């Protein structure tokens, strides 16, 4: 054991002198998660999505003005930017110039059609390069359309029962009210806060961290390969130390490197990106289990590979596949049942799951199931790797 520790210390010093560990283990995931959070972050938050719409009112009626006030209401809440145009041509020109992403056209005769219960259409003209902004514009119009239909139903129902039609001017006014008003029969309440989900920054940071962990840990394996190539491995094997001390030494090195890089990442992303990792003890458990599983898996790769180059390549391939399947880049579960089930064969998926359970101030014990699963990976792969490498070195 002492020999193993000595070898680990020697290698650690060697590795730290070579900056590639720092680059791959710390800088790359940090920079990437930062960039990704800047690119994806504002979109996820909701407002920040840049929605610029135009409005053409060809009806100039109470209903069209009600729609316009719904939109100006959204503008005052900072959700969209609205520009009113006098006619379709000006709006089209604005669209082509890129001043707006989409514009609404309320056709002449809309109000008349509604009162006569005739079909009517609101047109949403969108820039072909802004399909999402166009879709969101359409949903504004659809929401308004639902509001109009709801009011119509209410009026008609009352009229059918009483034989009188209630005052219509109030009704038109009511169309421009906020749909979340208490006067409606229902309200959709966002209860997302109840769920345990990682916010975007933390998910990205965690996904990147666990992805690059496997590359960092590979440095321990590649150390073994280098020794094999340079001939120092056979010399170490002849020395009066246990055969497995060399391997153990590399494993300890890989473990130390993995833990160190993860700790740095956790601290850095918390400070720089506002990532929220959760209860420290739970995070520590997950990190330790994660690194152990990475060491086990990479060790198994080395054991199974036939040539040194093959080991390095196979390791990278496995790291990428596990990362993709495990959801390091995007949540894989939504791709369907089979892939979702498959993702739980990776430590990555459990790692992210465990962190999600810690989110929203979950207790550290919430991470135990995930940490347990990851440790199982570590134990199984580690034991297999140990047995296979031992046999390999015996020849």
């Amino acid at each position, binding site marked *: 054991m002492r020999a193993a520790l000595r070898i680990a210390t020697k290698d650690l010093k060697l590795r730290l002198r*070579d900056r*590639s560990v720092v*680059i*791959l283990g710390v*800088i*790359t995931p940090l920079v*990437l998660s930062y960039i990704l959070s800047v*690119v994806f972050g504002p979109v*996820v938050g909701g407002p*920040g*999505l*840049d929605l610029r719409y135009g409005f053409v009112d060809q009806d100039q009626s109470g209903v069209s003005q009600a729609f316009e006030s719904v939109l100006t209401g959204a503008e005052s809440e900072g959700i969209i930017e609205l520009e009113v145009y006098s006619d379709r041509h000006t709006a*089209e020109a604005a669209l082509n110039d890129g001043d707006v992403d989409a514009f609404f056209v309320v056709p002449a005769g809309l109000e008349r059609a509604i009162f006569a*219960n005739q*079909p009517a*259409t*609101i*047109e949403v*003209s*969108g820039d072909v*390069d802004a*399909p*999402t*902004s*166009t*879709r*969101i514009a359409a949903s504004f*119009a*659809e*929401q308004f359309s*639902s509001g*109009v*239909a*709801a009011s*119509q*139903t209410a009026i008609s*129902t*009352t009229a059918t*029962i009483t034989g009188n039609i209630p005052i219509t001017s109030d009704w038109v006014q009511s169309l421009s009210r906020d749909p979340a008003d208490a006067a*409606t*029969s*229902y*309200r*959709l*309440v966002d*209860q*997302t806060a*109840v*769920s345990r989900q990682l*916010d*975007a920054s933390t998910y990205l940071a965690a996904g990147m961290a666990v992805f690059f962990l496997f590359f960092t840990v590979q440095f321990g394996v590649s150390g073994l390969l280098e020794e094999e190539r340079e001939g120092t491995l056979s010399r170490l094997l002849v020395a009066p130390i246990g055969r497995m001390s060399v391997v153990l030494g590399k494993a300890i090195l890989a473990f130390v490197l993995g833990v160190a890089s993860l700790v740095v990442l956790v601290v850095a992303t918390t400070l720089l990106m506002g990532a929220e990792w959760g209860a420290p003890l739970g995070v520590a458990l997950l990190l330790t289990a994660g690194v152990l599983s990475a060491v086990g898996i990479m060790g198994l790769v080395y054991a199974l590979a036939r040539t040194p*180059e093959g080991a390095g*390549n*196979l390791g*990278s*391939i496995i790291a990428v596949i596990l990362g*993709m399947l495990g959801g390091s880049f995007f*949540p894989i579960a*939504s791709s369907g049942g089979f892939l979702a089930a498959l993702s739980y064969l990776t430590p990555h998926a459990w790692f992210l799951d465990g962190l*999600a359970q810690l989110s929203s101030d979950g207790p550290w014990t919430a991470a135990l199931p995930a940490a347990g699963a990851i440790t199982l990976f570590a134990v199984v792969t580690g034991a297999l790797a140990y047995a296979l490498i031992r046999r390999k070195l015996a020849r």
Partner: protein
Amino acid sequence: MKALSIGWVNVKRMLRERSNIFFVFIFPIALVVLIGVQFGGDFEPRIGVHQGDDGEISGQIVDALQADASLAVEPFDSEDDVIRQVERGAVLLGVLIPAGMDAIARDGDQVEIGIVNRPDSAGAELQSVVAADVSDVMMAVGAAQFAMSETGASFDEVLGVASDIATGIEEITVEIVTEGEATFPSTLGRFDLGASSELVLFVFLSALAGSSALILTRQLGISTRMLSTPTPMSTIISGEALGRFGPSLAQGIYIMVLTLIMFGVNWGDPVGATLILVALAAVGAGAGMLMGATFSNSQQASGVGIMLALGMAALGGAMYPLDLFSPTMQKIAHLTPHAWALDGYAELVRRGGTTVDILPELGVLAAYAAVLLALASWRLRVALTRS
């Protein structure tokens, strides 16, 4: 020409390297498939629903959701189950219908229906679809409540009338028209968007990964040996440039052809599409050569290379649609060659443009390539003469 031979040798090296079978050939296609499956338009988004009681109104809401052809509904026995599935991402949205809705509605009070969302953008659009379905049902309820308060009739009497009337109402339809092409945005092939993004990402990644091949060439002394032959320095340098250019061009052609064959991806005007690829590969070649000439440690170079390739791809709009970037981020994105290449492809694919329409983008890419190749040539010359 010797330069071409040097370039060709590098292509052969790339093709012989076994790990490249995965990274160059399998991985990009797998990613295109995954992205097409994940973000493509045709697939049915799944929502989870928990129905609080067996009441009439809650039953109607569930029926309306299930009747909606644009989504798939999965019922769950408890609210916790729904929440858990949303957390996992197995369903994209959760709808929690409370118990006792009929009683609350009858009293003329407001019902609260819970929505559990995911912190990514897919939820917003899904939520509006669900809201429309719920509104169709609750419309009758609201009308009944209104009539109840105006006339004093009982809720159940009125609800029947309201439901009948609700089905007869002509709702305003919303028509989406796209400017630029006569086709609706929804006909954009589900793999089209992913394919051009992945192309831009991988061409650049290959080029930067190729820098380690150049470092190896220098380390093994091959470049020195080349210098000792009667070969002018300029030939060696152009050879190495071609050596970075060749593999990444090959990678790009591979992705274009395979996605075209396997998924019917529309790349737009073939001449224009190829020109963008050539220009992008040239930019990558310059960057790869610059890295290969500057770094001495191939592991360092690959670490930095991955960082740069993925980082620039993210910033340049290859991982998330450029049209959703804020104006500031769009300006920053256009500091990268990726954004220009993607603009070019958008012009060709979404707007049916031709080579003439993408001349500005090609010009910018050519400028990037020229600057990077010039810098790289100078650096490589220094590195070779020093060693």
